[in-house]
Structure formats: structure tokens, C-alpha cells
């Protein structure tokens, strides 16, 4: 590979992509790898939030993002896109969900369509890093804890006061220098 393929145009994904794919330990080779990923992609579109091993979640994320971006780009009348959706989504009612629910949901998004969180490991049962993969805009409660109002924290109050003092000092200096200039001009 020393030159880019130009046969098709692809929208840029808004997630970070690793330079190389992960093999996912498959005795059936690359085909088996895709079959593994197909299951998780299908489940992601079905349940909208999954708890997975980090490696497979990271791989799945790219494929799910690509599928959604292709669906947004070409719509359901584009034959290759439909063929791709047909391959990746095993439960056929989910294809309708992709084009009729997810595409309208994500068409205005400026960010990625999925989120990946690092989940805690239940030591000593699970040794592999776990993670949570979800579609954005899902109906479940947020994974991240709600933030408390930060304004009443002591360092924020102190900084607030410091800001006022700093600004006052700054404006004073500016006015002083302006006055001096006026004197010099006269």
C-alpha cells in the first residue's frame, strides 16, 4: 500500500482509529473475525448499550460508526449500502431501525455516533479490560455520574475573587498608560 484507493469516497469518522486492526484470536481467520464482530454490531443496534471486553468493543465501534455514516451518506435507496447493512445486521428488522430511527437521530450530529467507556474489572474474576459501548442518544440513564454544582467549591470562589482583583489591576494600568500618553502628546 503506497497510494490511497480512490474508487470510493468515505466520510471521515469522528473517533480515533488505531493504525492496525486487531486479530481477535480467530481459528477461522479473517472471515471468523468479521463473524464475531457482526454479532456485536447487531447487538449494539439492538440494545444500544453493551458491556464488552475492551478489544472487541474498540473494534466494533469502528464498524458501527462506518455503517451509520454510510447510511446517513447514501440513504436506503443506495444498493451497496443496503447490501452492507444486510451483511452486518443479522436481524432484519434492525435494518429498518438503522435507516428509520438511527439515521434521523444522527444526521445532525457533529460528534461521533457511539461512546466507549472504560468499565471496572471485577477482580479476580475478569482479567481482561472491560468497557461499555453505547449509541449516543439512547433511552437509558447516563453512565457518568451527574456533576455537582462547582461554583460553590472553595477554590472556585477564591479564583472568582482573584479574577476581579486581577481585572481591576489590569484596567487601572491601562488607564494609567493612556493618561501618560495623553500627557506626552500634549
Amino acid at each position: 500500500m503506497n497510494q490511497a484507493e480512490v474508487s470510493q469516497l468515505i466520510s471521515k469518522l469522528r473517533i480515533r482509529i488505531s493504525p492496525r486492526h486487531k486479530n481477535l484470536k480467530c481459528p477461522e481467520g479473517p472471515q471468523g473475525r468479521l463473524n464475531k464482530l457482526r454479532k456485536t454490531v447487531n447487538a449494539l443496534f439492538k440494545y444500544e448499550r453493551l458491556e464488552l471486553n475492551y478489544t472487541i468493543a474498540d473494534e466494533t465501534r469502528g464498524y458501527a460508526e462506518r455503517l451509520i455514516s454510510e447510511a446517513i451518506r447514501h440513504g436506503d435507496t443506495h444498493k451497496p449500502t443496503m447490501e452492507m447493512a444486510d451483511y452486518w445486521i443479522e436481524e432484519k428488522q434492525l435494518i429498518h431501525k438503522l435507516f428509520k430511527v438511527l439515521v434521523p437521530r444522527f444526521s445532525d450530529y457533529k460528534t461521533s455516533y457511539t461512546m466507549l467507556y472504560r468499565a471496572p474489572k471485577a477482580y479476580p474474576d475478569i482479567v481482561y479490560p472491560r468497557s461499555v459501548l453505547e449509541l449516543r442518544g439512547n433511552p437509558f440513564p447516563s453512565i457518568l455520574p451527574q456533576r455537582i454544582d462547582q461554583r460553590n467549591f472553595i477554590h472556585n470562589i477564591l479564583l472568582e475573587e482573584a479574577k476581579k482583583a486581577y481585572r481591576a489591576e489590569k484596567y487601572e494600568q491601562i488607564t494609567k498608560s493612556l493618561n501618560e500618553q495623553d500627557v506626552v502628546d500634549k
Partner: protein
Amino acid sequence: MSKIIKCTILDLSTLLRVTYTGITVNQIRSAHNVRPPRIKYPLWHLQRERAKDDQQLTEDNRAFVKEAVHDKFGMPAVIHGISTYEVRSPLKEDSVERKNVEWHPKLKRTGLIARKLGNYPMWSDNGKSMLATLFQVIDNHVIKYIPPGEFDPPRKPYSCPKHKKELGCLLVGAESADPQYYTKQYCGLFYREGMMPKKILGRFLISPEAALQPGTPLLASHFRPGDFIDIRGKTIDRGFQGVMKRHGFHGLPATHGVTKSHRRGGNIGHGGEKGRVFPGTKMPGHMGNRYRIHKGAEILRINHKYNVIWVKGVASPGETNSIVYLHDTILPLRKHKITPPFPTSKEVEDDQLIDSYKEHMYKFTDPTITFEEEK
């Protein structure tokens, strides 16, 4: 209230100051079990990154901290194609005394810190193509100069236990960063020079005559096209490799009855009296990920706008986007023939001078190469 600002964020003057007292120990080798001296780390060997806790600042306060930092140190700016900060004149009076010495071949100048950008071909003016590697000098500034008397490196070279040359140490930093993300200790290294903390630090041994004032910017014009440089970098980490990849062995034949040893090294030793494996025998093992020097590489072209240096050949260590250190070469026949910019080059504001090429190189602005018929 202004006191609070000083206490909370801005006053870095109460930072840790490490005063350095060089102690010289004359080692006497009496017993065979003398323990090696403890490695003393240099004074800039500090913890850099702050713990990444969420400070929980409000948006307003975060903006204020940024504003205060920019007021103190300089506004963010793009200089020579790198996003950095406008450095105000760092020190009002010279902390390093300047000696107006003429350059002579025994003097050692400072080096530069650069990033490897990749490679692409260039042509000479007789149509011969050669691959060139690109290095960008990334926002280099002198941080500190330690004179020879005070400088005591933790590991001295084996060959000459006592330094024959009196060499000082110049600390050079590259790529400015926001001080919020570094420890107070680390920021203190740069505070007196009035600079943002640097992401990368490099140490260069120089002769005292080539000492530079802290805060001096170092540019690609420190070298000239046609000069030879040594490039020090960390080679690509290739992991555990066999002898064919690691040492270029031929392996054994693919056919003719050879089984299960097509890529093996073959014999590694003798029999009889020498019945052991000699130390240093080439065998499989970890390949790459160590510092190596590419010596005597020629500079073909320099771009003064982006501070990029084109070097002949693709043998320089490190992968694309890795950090390398550029020095004047130590190869005796390739040293400077004419006086280089000494102690370093000055910044010249010239919009016309963007590229300078080595002699007999094809410039991309030149017309097509044609050969004239001999008469």
C-alpha cells in the same frame, strides 16, 4: 486579593531551586568488590506530569487561568509552523558571559532537537535521484548553561575517566506547553528564563566558548546545506526477532532435505577447547528500541520558513514523528571546512529566503534538466 492569585497559580518564584555543588571523588580501586558510585541524576531530572485529576473549575475560572498564564508568559502564536507562545525577551542581563572567540575546528557547538517527518526523493542537477529524510527543528530554546566546573555527569565515559576536554553542558528544550499540565518543580526550570515549560529536554556537551544565553532560540540555520551531521534517535521497536531479520543472516536452504530450520542461524560455536558460545555471538533477540547514531549524513536543503532540514539517505534512526537529536558530525574528514554560524545562527527576517539548497542540487523551481551536446 492579588495575593491570592500569586499564591494559587502564578507565583512560581517560590519554586524548588536546586543548588548544585559538585563533589569530586577520586576513586581508589583497592578491593575487587568496590560498589559502583550511585548515579546522581541531573538537576532537570524531575517529575514532569502532574496527576491528572479533574480540577472541577468553572468555565469562567478556567478561562481566567489561561488568560493569566498568557499575560505572564506570552500569547499563543504560530512561529515557524509550530503552535507555541510568543517568548518575550527572556533575560535582561546576560547570565552567561560572552566570549568573542573565533571559531576553530576544536570547538564544539550545540546541537538541535528535531522531529523526523518522513522522506521523499530529491534530484541532483544531473538528474540523479536520491531519497532525503526530513527533520523539523521544533521550537528549540536554550534553557540553561552549566559551566565545566559545575557539570558532573552521572555516567562518565569509560574511555576517559577524567574529562580531557573541559566541556560545559547546555540544556535545550523543544515544544512549549501549557504549564497547567506540569508539576511546579518542572515549571521552575523554565521560570527564571521566562519561558513556558518545554515538552522535550535535551543535553548537549559544548565547549565553554560556544555557550549561549538562556532563552536563545535555535533554528535550522544553525546548520548549512552541505554540512554533515550526526543524527541520534531511538530505533524502531521490532520486538523479538530471528537472526535473518536482526542480523541479516541468510538462513538455510528452502529445499534439498532441509527440515524445520529454514530461518535458523546454524552453528554458533566450536568444539574442544573452545567449547562454549563466545560472548557477542549474533543470535535471536530483541531488535530495535535503542539509541543509535547515524553518522556523517549530508544536508541537502533547508527550509527557513518551517525550519525543516532535508538530509540525504533514509538510514536515520527512529520512526516518523519521533524525536531525534542533531549534532555536528564527529567524523574527522567531514567536519566543517569553513566557519559555521558560531555559537549559533541569528534569526533573520527575510521573506525571500525560504529554501536554500546544497550545491548541484535540482531546485524544484528550476526548469527541466536538459543536457547540451558536446562539440
